């Protein structure tokens, strides 16, 4: 069964390239530029894994993370937070707020693919 990955980030080149790589790896991809689009995509695409930037144009990525987890049908949704902040406390904050994994930009594309595969295979 094809797994769906929701990417929530306003960096369009990054999301396009990631989409390409994920699709090449056999995933289905849904894109959202901001929190509002992400919540709509949750209902439409029913993703198996979500990649969420900690900083979004309309709200905090952490806020979205919590809303996604509270939403119907999102129980146990693995969320991988993408961040530009390298502080160790950011990692703690992400896990405290319900994230499953955490990756600091810039990252190696193959590394993030590996993380996504791992999270997707663990998802129901």
């Amino acid at each position, binding site marked *: 069964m094809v797994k769906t990955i929701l990417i929530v980030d306003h*960096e369009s*080149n*990054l999301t*396009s*390239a*990631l989409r*390409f*790589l994920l699709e*090449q790896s056999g995933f289905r991809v849904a894109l959202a530029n901001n929190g509002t689009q992400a919540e709509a995509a949750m209902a439409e695409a029913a993703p198996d894994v979500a990649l969420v930037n900690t900083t979004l144009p309309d709200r905090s990525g952490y806020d979205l993370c919590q809303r996604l987890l509270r939403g119907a049908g999102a129980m146990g949704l693995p969320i991988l937070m993408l961040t*530009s*902040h390298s502080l160790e406390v950011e990692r703690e904050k992400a896990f405290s707020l319900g994230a499953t994994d955490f990756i*600091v*930009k*810039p*990252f*190696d*594309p*193959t590394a993030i693919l590996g993380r996504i595969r791992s999270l997707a295979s663990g998802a129901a």
Partner: protein
Amino acid sequence: MRAFRLPRLRKRLWGSTAVIAASGALAATALSGVHPLLAGAAAGLAPVAAGLLLDRRVTRPLSATERGAGIIASSNPGHRLELPARHWLGRLPETVEQLGGTVARSRREMEEAASAWTTRIEARKARLETILREIREGVVVCRDDGRITLYNRTARLLLDAEPALGLGRYLHEVLNDGPLRHALGLLDPSADAANGADTELVCATASGERLLRCRVARLITDDPGTDGFVITLTDVSRQTRAVLRREQSLREAVESLRDPLTSLCTVSESLRLAQQAQMGDDAERFGRMLHEETRRLTDAFAHLSDETASMVTDNWRLEDLHLGSLVAGIKKNAAANQLPRVQCSADVWVSAEPYLLSQVIEALLMRLADTLGVSAVALSGREQGSLVYLDMNWSGDVVSPDQLDAWLDAGLDDVGGTVTLREVLQRHDTTVWSQPDLSRPHRALLRLPLPGAPAKTEAPTTVAARPEYYDFAADEAEPVRALGDEAERRLGDLDYVVFDCETTGLEPGHGDEIVAIGAVRIHQGRVMHGETFELLANPERPIPALASSIHGIHDEDVADAPPVDEAVRRFHAFAGNAVLVGFNIAFDMRFLRLKQRRCGVRFDHPTLDALLLSILLHDHTGEHTLEGVARRLGVGVGGRHTALGDSLTTAEIMIQLFELLPEAGITRLEEAIDAQEKMVEFRRQQRAF
């Protein structure tokens, strides 16, 4: 003196009468065998003659001796008794004069000892004052309880936004109490500064205007009860702000690189896959993205580079620097460094890194000597707008731009040649050029503009006085805080804040507002001219022309002034717990007390009214205007028609009243307040009739 002397004279007269009566009786007895007529006449004249004799030889000399002894005792120990040529006082006058001589000698010895001691104290004081004045750091000396006993000019400048700074006030009213208390707690109570027992802290001022680095050390003295601590202050606000800005910039700059780098990596990986899978369209799309992200990365790098350069600049300690003093330092070493002779007239302040700026000036002078053979240079500083133009002027030709460029590209020897003159100038946001001196032929100059330092002091604002006004009902509704120890203290020992308000009118209850507050402290019987408060306030309503004509404050003067509430709060902080003093103070207190609830402060200070106390002491006259009272007490009236000027005049009047009030049996605060209240009651009854 007259009251004491009269009974004695009376006693003397009774004594003389008794002697005369006795001598009359004796004469009558001695002449009992002579012709009755003669005997009667002799008996009648003898007492008179004896009385005259006694008066000349005893009574008058005694009186002269008594007066002379009084002069010897009270004012002139060397006084010679003015006695008749002959008297029956024996060695008494001589003994009195000898005693006078002994008193004079003792007094002279005491005066000499006191004078020597005073000279030593004065010399120490002068030395201490010089040291304190020259110290670049602010210095505040406090008692153990934090009461300020001494501070220097730099401390005054650093704490200019703190209305509570003043002798006798508490340091915790000026500096954030928490860090200070913590630092004092760290000090070993038995170790003083001489033993290296000090501690450092960074502490905000009470108003939050500045951040200061403080070093605190104990002062242990031989005089019990006078131990305390000394605290030196250095302003680190600018450095701290620069550090914070630098950290923020660095963080933002680094984070700005993350997104393009992430995209670049991901896109290039996608491109590789697309090319591998021969997906031409996708490969072309990713190629474009690659180009975009590379450009973003380049821009982010350029930004980071700019930020790094500005961080280096911020790292420099730009200080307010007196240009004349800087050049004086250069002149001292002129001969040793083979510089031209330097004349300087640069009484201006610049904002610069002192050491590097002096290095640049020295390097330019050295080049002038080496390259152009200049032997004398006149340095001058001139303020223009926000810049100070430093001109180095000599007799001879200008320096060509190419030559000057070469000088500027040379490294500064004293910093290992790692920094060029040009870099130093760039970091001061400036450059230097050479031009002919247009005002004098055959002369040229190097002109170096420098950032000017902020003004050292603000020009005093000008406000005017108000008309005399009585309001006896003002205090009725407002309880004054209970007098504590201060009730029993001598008037001259208390701390006072003498103040005056200028207003839009006479009716605070009907919308009239304060437009200016002036105040000055009195500490231990001295008017503290360095501890004043002067603030215009924006009444947020038009100032009537009549009011402006009295105090000279117009709407435009207060347009940028703080609102009245803020001015009242700041004055409250300046007043602290002092006794408030005014001239017709009820008027001013009414304005303040109507504001207190809204401002979150209480004006429950004890108050003294110089006007009421003057009426109390001099009820023989109806002249009780500020000028009239000042004239009567020999006080000069300066700055009349300004809130501060009137406060200063009232303060000087108060000092004179402190001298006079004891004659009316008033020596303590409680007595003064009682007397004042009785005066109020008396005036109230006068009004009722």
